[in-house]
């Protein structure tokens, strides 16, 4: 087999608590320049006597501990991360550099407007860019993540309908949607009604027409959807919704397929969220922070969360809180500002031509992989792919090897696995999104690895089932973790401490 990367580092590293010993310290405070206080007198019975099992370690131990832990992680900096729908693209380092410039990193959210002009200018500039990219009319940057954006978007949908005298009851969600969509609709007090896909993997427009009525507040569609397929009749879908007074919500998680090439606002979308960590290169950070701005059409503008950044007559910027029809506030302060800086730096680095080329390359890469693996893996939908392609394990599962088994074996080849859980309409899905960040050479290695794996399945399925082999640890017992949850370390738990270094 060809292997892209070398073995994972197998350094032994216990928990930080297991290195702790009284008297070790990594901190030093300056001498106190005000009188000492009697804490017992100041706090009375509220004084804390003991901090429990907190670590006591030195700085070098901290550096080694976290550096060693880091070597147990896969990351986009190490290689391709073909996670469908998650858009793991390169994270430019200038983004990190500018987000750490002192006046931005240390800005207090309540500092006077006079010395917040820089931060507000960043928010306004990013807002203007995102409005132009989506073809919408207005935006809020406040939501802290994609799912939080969904919540905010649906709150605005609800407020819009309420302003017309009827909040309506239902949200329609295609079976190709993201997992968060139904949970979000429920949080906003809506009933969820599923919508079937047709045999091309798209919203069945006839079924939608039959299901659409005046009880429906909105349709939540992902476009391109989780099959990586562009909803070709999106405008008809929009017309159908609008004809009965409903709204079209678009989950913008897959905007990496559209930026610079097409704009949701132009094809009839009323409200949509963006994931700055997907499309605009802010880092995923091992699971956050995200940022999920929500862009809307004019008719929803009165309902935006407060505050909104506005330019005053004298050209200075201010926060506008006076918005009587607002859905309210969805997060303290103004959102994940640090992510706004990174996303804007990315937009600046690309410009209009760069963003278009980025999208083109992302779509080109996905189609190149599709071509490379056609016939080796089952392609359940023949519909053209945009930025991601979905195969299934139909061929391999005949040998007892399922998508998750293949995913684990792919780790040995030096790649992060593709997405296995989506879309729900493809049993045993292999959902692959290479993004624009991959050179041809890396794509060729990936295709080669996938082909080699398929051969292994034919020759020795058990070998694949026992993977991964090259990781520090082998397959973990998830059932044990759920049945007997151990969610924190305790001093009594010494069972797993390695006795000596190997």
């Amino acid at each position, binding site marked *: 087999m060809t292997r892209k990367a070398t073995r994972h580092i197998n350094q032994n590293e216990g928990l930080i608590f297991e290195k702790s010993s009284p008297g070790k310290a990594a901190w030093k405070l300056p001498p106190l320049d005000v009188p000492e206080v009697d804490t017992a007198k100041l706090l009375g019975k509220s004084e804390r006597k003991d901090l429990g099992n907190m670590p006591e370690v030195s700085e070098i131990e901290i550096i080694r501990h976290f550096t060693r832990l880091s070597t147990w992680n896969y990351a986009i900096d190490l290689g391709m991360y073909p996670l469908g729908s998650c858009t793991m693209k390169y994270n430019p380092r200038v983004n990190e550099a500018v987000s750490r410039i002192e006046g931005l990193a240390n800005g207090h959210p309540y500092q006077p407007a006079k*010395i917040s002009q820089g931060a507000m200018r960043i928010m306004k500039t990013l807002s203007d860019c995102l409005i132009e990219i989506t073809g919408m009319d207005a935006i809020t940057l406040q939501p802290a993540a994609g799912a939080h954006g969904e919540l905010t978007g649906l709150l605005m949908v609800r407020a819009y309908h309420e302003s017309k005298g009827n909040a309506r009851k239902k949200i329609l969600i295609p079976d190709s949607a993201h997992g*968060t969509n139904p949970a979000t609709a429920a949080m906003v007090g809506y009933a969820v009604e599923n919508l079937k896909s047709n045999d091309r993997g798209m919203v069945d427009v006839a079924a939608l027409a039959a299901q659409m009525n005046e009880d429906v507040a909105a349709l939540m569609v992902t476009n391109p959807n989780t099959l990586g397929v562009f909803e070709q009749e999106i405008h008809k879908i929009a017309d159908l919704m609008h004809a009965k007074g409903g709204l079209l919500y678009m989950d913008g998680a897959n905007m990496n397929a559209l930026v610079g090439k097409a704009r949701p606002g132009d094809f009839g979308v009323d409200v949509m969220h963006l994931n700055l960590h997907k499309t605009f290169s802010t880092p995923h950070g091992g699971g956050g922070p995200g940022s999920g701005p929500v862009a809307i059409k004019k008719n929803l503008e009165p309902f935006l969360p407060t505050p909104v950044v506005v330019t005053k007559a004298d050209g200075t910027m201010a926060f506008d809180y006076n918005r009587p029809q607002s859905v309210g506030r969805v997060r303290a302060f103004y959102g994940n500002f640090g992510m706004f800086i990174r996303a804007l730096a990315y937009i600046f680095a690309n410009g209009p031509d760069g963003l278009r*080329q980025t999208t083109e*390359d992302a779509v080109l890469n996905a189609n190149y992989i599709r071509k490379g693996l056609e016939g080796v893996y089952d392609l359940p939908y023949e519909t053209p792919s945009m930025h991601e392609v979905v195969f299934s394990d139909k061929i391999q599962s005949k040998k007892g090897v399922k998508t998750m088994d293949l995913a684990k074996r792919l780790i040995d080849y030096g790649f992060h696995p593709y997405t296995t859980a989506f879309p729900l309409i493809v049993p045993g899905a292999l959902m692959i999104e290479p993004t624009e960040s991959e050179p041809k050479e890396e794509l060729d290695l990936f295709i080669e690895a996938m082909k080699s794996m398929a051969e292994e399945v034919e020759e020795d399925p058990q070998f694949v089932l026992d993977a991964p082999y090259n*990781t520090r640890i082998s397959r973990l*017992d998830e059932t044990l973790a*759920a049945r007997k949850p151990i969610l924190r370390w305790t001093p009594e738990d010494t069972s797993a401490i390695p006795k000596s270094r190997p």
Partner: protein
Amino acid sequence: MRYLPKSPADREAMLKAIGSRSIDDLFSPIPAEYRLAGDLKIPRQMAESEIVDWFKLRSKENGDDYTSFLGAGAYFHYRPVVIDALVQRGEFLTAYTPYQAEFAQGTLQAIFEFQTMISELTGMDLANASMYDGSTGAAEAVMMAVRITGKSSAVIARSLHPEYREVLQTYATHQGIPLRTVGFTDTARVDLKELESSVTDDTACVLIQSPNFFGSIEDVETIADIAHKKGALLIVSIAEAVSLGIVEPPRVADIVAMEAQSFGVPLGFGGPYCGVLATKDKFVRQMPGRLAGQTLDKKGKRGFVLTLATREQHIRREKATSNICTNQALVALMVNIFMTVYGKVGLRELAKQNLAKTAYAAGQFGKNAKVLFAGSPRFNEFVVETSEDPAAINSRLLGHKIVGGLPLKKFYPELGNAALWCCTELTTRSMIDTAVGLVAESERSVRSMKETEEVAQ
């Protein structure tokens, strides 16, 4: 297009392999009338040096060399440099959510350590892997209490951060959770009489903040008794995490909804921050958010996985505990490293310094202006009432490169000319003395103006 690793020849070769004539063929699924004909109207492509310059200018417009006395849910503490040295490692920065546990052990173990330390500090049994921030965490905690108790309403302290209350109001409106607000006494603590009469058999939870928005430490045990007597849960929101080094945690609470920004997370004009929920073992299945758990691999080696996912939206869909999908892993890592740097002894010393600075500052301000709510213990924040509008005083302070306390009129109109001041270990004595001097000057000039008026009459 420096982020794109393909040469024109590569693109040609790939198109050929696919069997497409041009890239436009690949976009043919998008109906022609919706395909953009021209360029997006956004700024042109910029060089890296231009990008850095642009943001440096914005930084200057943002007042990058002011001394600040602002707190109110966002605190300026020293961030040890090892934090950024470590979180910028690509393996942490550019990793995805650790769903593939075998090669995401770094993130998973770090989360497990985070969960452990948060549990220790809050006095709870367990904590989740972090959530968006303190405000959304508090709202999620209320919804969690509603699920646990099967009751529908919530009682909220008015001394909870005003923006947290606004966020909760937004969530509660559409969940059909009636909210009742309870005021505070002249010590800034929750009005216990009013609380007693507000908690009914239908109350799912009482939500307070301690130290509260004014910096006062609540009588948590008495409040817990009042809540528990009626079968309601007690949720305690903690916005200033550094307080946990010296202030007894709310062990009697059922849920702690914390904002951990103080622990090594930049102020960053309000985000990203690090919310976290901690609770009792028995409530774990109703807690939203991710959890990392310890388990064994096939060879019996210790390892960590995301666990109890059956509570989560991707499995339970509309019946999930919450729609929350992401956590704040990288920010939680900053918090983890901060807690590790200070540890058991340092966190206490750090909190003690904060306490001393605040005691000194409140004492000095009190000589010329009125320090409100003096009758309760407090941490880091205090309220100063002046004769002059604090906004006017603040604009003069700005001339001295000082950002004064937060005027409270906007959130609490009845407090008139009061402002919320905050000191941390980074506030020097000379800064405090300068600010105190300027406030004293204002007080004196108002007083002499009054005297002049009296003489004239």
